[in-house]
């Protein structure tokens, strides 16, 4: 039984489940490090998922779909930035509005363009890596290694590169230092000549791009279709991963992997134990609440997180 659950396939599926959560969570890291709460990640993932499928089916090119998803994410990020940074509106309200907007507009266009509630992906991205030897041919060990490390969608490798870059940018460059200072103590950063507004706009739009990319992975690579509300609360689980990862890229990646393992485990246990499938479906959400509670007292958000910047105080 143990071997049935914990095998190479299990590792691979954990990683696949973790990718969208990690990408969206990283979006949350960028946004909140600059001082803007982004509840709209959920809607950005959903819009990205729809755009990826729609553009792929129209152009027959999944890479164009991925690019479209990123652009739509940036656009929604821009809307969030305008409402929260320029107009200083309540950031949670703006995020909620983006989620409502995304739920409506995706189904709206689904009907308008395809006349259906569910659209299948016509072409997927190629699998990159070593060719998979068929079972029985060659050693099982070599096969397992390939399954675990070298047989994925290009977006999986891209995600790993993005995370390394994000870590370097945030913690090893002057730009990253400025971004973090804007989220911790914007008045001081402003005195040092950092353009608060510009930094926050860039951060929020980056978070939109990452959430859009997460959405494209979800629809193009995981589900191979788009259906309404398919983001399934992942934007919020990603926020939980971000908090558990203490607002750092590597921590967020680790927390996302934890969710990946949890979900993959639940899916596998379903076949072994007689648990109703509905309870299996609850696992990621229960895990998110559990993770949040256990992060209490350990994880401190950036000091200026959620506070609009006012130049003159008083």
């Amino acid at each position, binding site marked *: 039984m143990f071997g049935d659950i914990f095998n190479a396939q299990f590792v691979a599926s954990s990683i696949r489940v973790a990718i969208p959560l990690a990408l969206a969570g990283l979006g949350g890291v960028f946004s909140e490090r600059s001082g803007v709460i982004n509840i709209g990640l959920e809607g950005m993932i959903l819009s990205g998922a729809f755009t990826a499928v729609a553009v792929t089916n129209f152009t027959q090119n999944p890479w164009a779909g991925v690019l479209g998803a990123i652009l739509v994410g940036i656009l929604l990020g821009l809307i969030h930035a305008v409402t929260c940074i320029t107009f200083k509106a309540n950031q949670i309200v703006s995020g909620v509005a983006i989620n409502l907007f995304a739920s409506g507009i995706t189904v*709206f266009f689904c009907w308008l363009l395809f006349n259906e509630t569910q659209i299948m992906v016509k072409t997927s991205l190629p699998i990159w890596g070593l060719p998979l030897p068929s079972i029985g041919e060659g050693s099982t060990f070599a096969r397992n290694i390939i399954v675990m490390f070298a047989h994925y969608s290009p977006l999986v490798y891209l995600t790993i590169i993005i995370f390394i870059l994000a870590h370097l940018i945030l913690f090893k460059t002057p730009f990253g230092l400025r971004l973090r200072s804007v989220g911790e103590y914007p008045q001081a950063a402003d005195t040092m000549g950092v353009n608060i507004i510009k930094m926050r706009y860039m951060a929020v739009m980056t978070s939109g791009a990452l959430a859009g990319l997460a959405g494209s992975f979800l629809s193009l690579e995981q589900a191979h279709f788009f259906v309404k509300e398919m983001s399934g609360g992942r934007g919020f689980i990603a926020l939980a991963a971000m908090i558990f990862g203490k607002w750092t890229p590597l921590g967020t990646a680790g927390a996302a992997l934890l969710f990946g393992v949890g979900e993959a485990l639940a899916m596998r246990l379903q076949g072994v134990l007689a648990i109703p499938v509905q309870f299996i479906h609850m696992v990621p959400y*229960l895990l998110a609440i559990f993770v949040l509670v256990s992060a209490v007292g350990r994880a401190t958000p950036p000091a200026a997180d959620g506070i609009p910047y006012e130049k003159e105080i008083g």
Partner: protein
Amino acid sequence: MKSIKKFDYYTLLEKITPLIAVIFALLVGAVVIMLIGENPIFVYKTLFSNAIGNRDGWGNVLFRATPLIFTGLAVAFAFRCGLFNIGGEGQMYIGTFLATWVGFTFTNLPAFILIPLCILTAAAGGALWAAVPGILKAKTGVHEVIVTIMMNWIAASFTFFLVLKFKAPPTEAMVAAGVKQMIPHTREIAEAARLPRLYPILQSLNIDFPAYNQVNVSFFIAIGVAILAYYILWKTNLGYEIRAVGYSPLAAEYGGISVAKNIILAMMISGAFAGLVGTNEVMGFKYKWRQELFTGLGFNGIAVALLGKNHPLGVVLAAILFGILNYGGAIVNIFTEGRIPRELIMVLQAVIVIFVVISDEVVKRLIRQRRKIL
């Protein structure tokens, strides 16, 4: 004298910002309709004339407004305590399912016991579900936004499990045809648990009203709950404490008010309001629980509360406006043979929310500037 006049003008402006936001959103909608290649004037005329041009339309509008009054009040009430309850969807699922269960289980009870029992169960179920994020927020400080959303998905799975457990037996026609229930649903609730529709009441008053109209007594329950929310918030000690926590938790704590207690209570009352959606959807309309993935009523409650400026009267008016848009949107969809998808209304609602928050901020800043100059 002149300065006082100007000041009044801005206070008025602050009051009517939601109206400005709605007008802007309708303009955005007009642009979208034109992009699809339809005539916005025709679309809006069809929408409004069918929704509020006759009694049948008004009935349908109020029927659709009723659940939104409940979910809107839920969001508004929690907001007064500084809490964002976006878990109305889940609270409504649990409350509604439990009320349905009571309705088809205790079938021997007379109506004057069973109806209040079902209503109280709906409220209790919602309160129970909202207590979890409330307690977590009060005791550990975990943000209620993420927890309430997670609780929505857990509620959806949990009710799915329950509906399969209490599934209605297949009808003879279904057995003969060898088909199963496409969408799982429970047995119907007892006759004694059903709320009367407005049709027989209006008929006895000699008012002409179509018999098939679904508007029912639940609308009056919703109005009653709105008055109750107003009473609790502005006429009781509890409401005073809840609002004090909403203004400034630190100041409230310093003034001897228990922040934790009020957070939990505000969440539970908010959840109870959301749970009462069941009075309209099951006790007054479907008479059974049908499993669906998110009706959107809980989420639209957020938009209703924001548009209504988190005031019970505003919530009722905003819910009626959304009722008009929803029903009118459905009619437009039929009139244009599906060329205008119903989801246009969802997009409009989201645009209204964005414009409400922006115009609120702009007006606030205008007033602040004005006061500085004066």
